[in-house]
């Protein structure tokens, strides 16, 4: 039955080469933790992606309850945390996952750095990876404000103050981030939009480029 469906689609779209590209490629021994235990360091990239998927899924569920305005944001998070069934768990996954994704990405970056895997011909992939790193930090910064408690509010205020100290364009950056004169209602909607639409969009595009390049170039050889 499944085979029949596959063949039916394959006849029309010729998906076998695509499947070959995605799934049926060789993974060398030196990155396989089943053969060399120390090869688990090669898993950090995959784990970063795994946690990113968790972040996207849990974030999608959070937006079902979150209200991005200064009166209801805190109340909606409070409601989600304490009243909604498993709301605390979903929010917990998103909160701790945000830290974990940074940890995993950090370890992945170190692995790539110390194995010299960023060297020719993989320079572009390293640059894209660093851009992903910055996007992740941006997601962390914008997501921090959303619960609209004191910690969120004052951290954002300080963060924007720091951005303001950039010469010449500082005040423009500040206004762009705040969306007005103060950290307030417009800042919250802005950060929400950036956190939920802009940065994830950029992240997915960069991830696609990251994976495409890995497939094209293969994993770096053993040292």
């Amino acid at each position: 039955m499944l085979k029949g469906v596959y063949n039916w689609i394959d006849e029309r779209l010729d998906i076998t080469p695509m499947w070959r590209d995605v799934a049926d490629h060789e993974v060398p021994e030196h990155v396989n933790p089943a053969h060399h235990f120390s090869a688990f360091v090669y898993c950090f990239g995959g784990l970063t992606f795994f946690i990113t998927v968790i972040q996207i899924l849990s974030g999608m569920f959070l937006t079902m309850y979150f209200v991005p305005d200064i009166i209801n944001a805190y109340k909606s998070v409070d409601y989600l945390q304490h009243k909604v069934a498993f709301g605390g768990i979903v929010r917990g996954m998103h909160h701790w996952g945000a830290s974990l994704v940074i940890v995993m990405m950090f370890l992945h970056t170190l692995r790539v750095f110390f194995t010299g895997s960023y060297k020719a011909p993989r320079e572009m992939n390293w640059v894209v990876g660093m851009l992903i790193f910055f996007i992740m930090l941006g997601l962390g910064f914008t997501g921090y404000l959303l619960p609209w408690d004191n910690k969120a509010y004052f951290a954002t205020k300080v963060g924007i103050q720091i951005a303001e100290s950039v010469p010449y364009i500082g005040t423009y950056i500040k206004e762009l981030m705040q969306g007005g004169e103060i950290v307030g209602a417009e800042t919250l909607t802005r950060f929400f939009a950036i956190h939920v639409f802009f940065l994830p969009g950029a992240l997915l595009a960069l991830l696609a480029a990251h994976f495409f390049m890995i497939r094209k170039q293969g994993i770096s050889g053993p040292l």
Partner: protein
Amino acid sequence: MAHGHKSNEKVVFVGDSRVRKKTKTGPSVPPDYSSYPGKSEAFIPNFLLKEWMVGVVVLVGFLVLTISEAAPLGYPADPTNAAFIPMPDWYFLFLYQFLKLQYVSKDYVVLGTVGVPGIAFGALLLAPFLDTGKERRFYRRPITSLLMIMALVSCFWLTKQSWDHYQHELEITNTIPEHILREEKAEEAAKKAAESGGGGEAAEVEVPLVDKDDPAVELTKKAQCVACHGADLKGNESSGIPSFHGIGDEYSKEDLVDIVTNGKNNMPPFKDKLTAEEIDQLATWLAKQKKPE
């Protein structure tokens, strides 16, 4: 780099990658498993199952953390709260602490916000173009590795400094972080509700002021109590400023005289602003502030 290229190989790659060197002859043949030595295997399902084993270990740890530690939530943002100690998330702490160093703050802040981080992150971003040698092993390229290790050590050190500084600040201002305070209060309220047999969580009952027309109320304005404890005298829970409503349940008149006279925690002494009689009058009134039976 463990394997060189033999001239009779079907496909020749650039370095150790799977990017094919352009050859003039022959059709493009997809690279096969034999281009890597050892026991290579297919990505799906063979390898992915093994990587998934590592993933499962991480996932279990992650879920245990999620279930045992609730995500923190403080009190609603209050821009007038002057006592709050701002803290970014932990992965920004190194940068936050860095900006407190002498030569990258105040007059030199541009060096701290743009200069040093710009160079550091710029170098990281462009690492492949700065470190262009063919050698991949880290111990054979000591400059690159040392720079990275130094950067790592400074980041860890700054993060620890920042955290210690925060803990110290909490201690000297006698502050409990809001999300912990809030959780404790919620637990207490739940316990109280369970004891009194009342169902539900509406344990917070508004306590009215006793003797609202007492002349002592005028004293709260004169002595500027209202500046911190609020015009409604309800204090500011998130800053640790107590409410006057029901304060008589917590302190005796003697305690209150002492607190007003000599101050407590962040509260300044009022012995210079009020006379002893006034303090006595105020404390008498405050001691009357008890919850209605």
